[in-house]
């Protein structure tokens, strides 16, 4: 019986996965807050507490993500890009293009048939295709981010945003509200604008089916539908899309102790 721990300290949320003999035993997601070192320690404690073990019981820990280098108790670090690749390939061996929609960054990763990275790209200083856009939408509509997806599915006539910029879209959304557009139509419009950005990003690494969507954005069914419509095909979505990179980090740790 061997436990390994994978940690992904993202800009918005920290995620951790424990594998026992290579199988998922526990996972948690907590907000990262402003201190990545503390977030790494807290998410590790939370995931281990859940199954009643301590760090002393863990054979190896691999950390990834924006704050991965701050996890000082990790045995190794990897990039979130690589960990996403490993995690997605484990869950969906047929996936060749991964679109990860994180809180601050979106990434597109192209994989080969063995799950190795062929190429990747990240969005630049633009919130247009990231989870930040959804947070902005939730704020102006006075609702929780988690409720956005279901509500957007009720859209009758999605608003067409003239901009892909989250900052300008915020004022445009406010204008549409005052013109009487329904929240559902506004949200569906935001999803379409985001999907367009995300698919454009993926095109830059070369679209190759099957397509997987991960990250917090993949928990939004409306966004997933919009990306699916933009690509004209069904998408692979993990049951717990936020923890894909943490799962990948844990799998890297598992591979390392098996060697």
């Amino acid at each position, binding site marked *: 019986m061997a436990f390994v721990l994978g940690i992904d300290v993202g800009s918005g949320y920290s995620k951790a996965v424990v594998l026992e003999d290579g199988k998922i035993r526990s996972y948690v997601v907590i907000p990262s807050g402003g201190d990545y070192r503390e977030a790494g320690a807290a998410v590790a404690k939370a995931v281990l507490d859940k199954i009643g073990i301590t760090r002393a019981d863990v054979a190896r820990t691999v950390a990834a993500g924006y704050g991965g*280098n701050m996890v000082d108790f990790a045995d190794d670090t990897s990039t979130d*890009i*690589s960990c996403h690749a490993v995690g997605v390939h484990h869950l969906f061996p047929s996936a060749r293009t991964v679109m990860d929609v994180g809180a601050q960054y979106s990434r597109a990763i192209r994989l080969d048939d063995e799950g190795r*990275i062929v190429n990747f790209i990240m969005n630049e200083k633009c919130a247009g295709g990231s989870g930040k856009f959804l947070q902005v939408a939730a704020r102006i509509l006075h609702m929780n981010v988690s409720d956005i997806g279901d509500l957007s599915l009720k859209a009758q006539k999605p608003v067409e945003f003239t901009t892909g910029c989250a900052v300008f879209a915020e004022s445009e959304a406010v204008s549409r509200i005052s013109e009487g557009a329904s929240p559902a139509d506004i949200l569906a419009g935001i999803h379409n604008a985001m999907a367009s950005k995300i698919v454009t990003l993926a095109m830059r690494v070369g679209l190759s089916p099957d397509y997987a969507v991960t990250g917090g954005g993949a928990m939004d069914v409306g966004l997933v539908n919009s990306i699916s419509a933009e690509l004209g095909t069904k998408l692979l979505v993990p049951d717990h899309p936020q923890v894909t990179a943490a799962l990948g980090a844990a799998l890297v740790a598992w591979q390392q102790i098996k060697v």
Partner: protein
Amino acid sequence: MAEEKKGRAVATSTAASIPKFVRGNLSATLKAKEEGKKVAAAFIADGQDEIMRAMDIVPAWGESFSGVCAAKRDAEKYLQKAESDNFSRSLCTYATCNIGFDMMREELGQAPEGAPWGGMARPDMMLGNGQLLCDPRFKWPQATQHYQQDVPVFVTNMYYPPWDPNGDHHEVEELYVKYAKEELHETVKFCEKITGKKMDWDRLAKTVELSDKTWDLFIDTYELRKHIPTPMDTGDAMNTMVPLTFNLGTQEAYDFYVSLKAELEQKIKDGIGVADPEKFRVIWAAGLPSWFALGDFQYFNSKGVVFPVEVTYRGCEKIERLDLPKTNDPLEHIAWRWVRYWTHWYDAAKKRPGSTPKVERIIEYIEDYKCDGAVFHSAFSCRSWHAGIMQQAATLKKVYEDIPILIMEGDIVDISSYNEADTHNRIDAFIETLAAHKARKG
């Protein structure tokens, strides 16, 4: 596990003399008046270097000064000054940084206090040059003239035949050369008028001859970087380009490459490389660097990644390869050299369907320098040179090989575009991609 930061394994000691060159160029503008010389605000890579050198005109390189401000992370106040007069941040930040500096110098009547290395002197003339490389050069001197209304501006145009896969550029090359030669003649006339001196044509011919020798020596020196492990990478080359780029036609520039070549030969003999071990070789395939973040090259090196070659600032070629027609007119020679520098990749590009000269050049370097991947830097404020970078990367993959590519996006001067942690994260992921690619190739 905390990130282990290593110092650079090796940096050429010859490159360490570069700040002296840059500082010397700036102080030459400040001393010009007392030496009875005229100062010209000038731009690089436009064929005017030898004319200025042969007439003892001191070039004031605005691009270099803005780069120095950026490298010292001291550009913000000049950018803000230009912004205060409605120059957008999305304009070339070499231009806006320099214009902001000029605005302050005009207001104060002297270089602003604390200006990097004393700043640059007020010019006696401005030599703009619209060419295919950089569009701000039409407007930058004209915009500056708003603040220095008594300083005459002369804008020339140096063109080369545009790439047309279905056309034959050889048929029109001579026309472009004729046009460029006329423009250079007009430049000479303008300089004669401002300086009150006549061009010494024999001196110009000798200056051009020295430039040609420097071009050849530069390539001979840089080709030593093909060696594995490479004795010098792009981190150094962003410095060692200075003599070629800013001091062409001077003995000092030629002598610099004599020293650099000797040092690289010694390093090869001693088996000293930039990275130990050298794990991956990548090409800096396009784009000016972020001058405030040159340390990122050391970050690459610390991970075993080296850049044995770069397209940027390799602004010359072996003269023999250009197959220049014989002429006794030094201006005609400069014109031919200018046109052929750009067009000599055209024939190779035509042989590979779907390719372009810029991509063909990258492919040639990838093969000659045995590169595993490519890094492109897209600087948001330098539109004319960076606009086609995504297309170049896509074409490279399509017509050559699906090699790992990292596209970094930032700026040349504006540090607000930069996030070190994010950049290093991308570099790490790129290195993992290089490893996967190498494993796939076996």
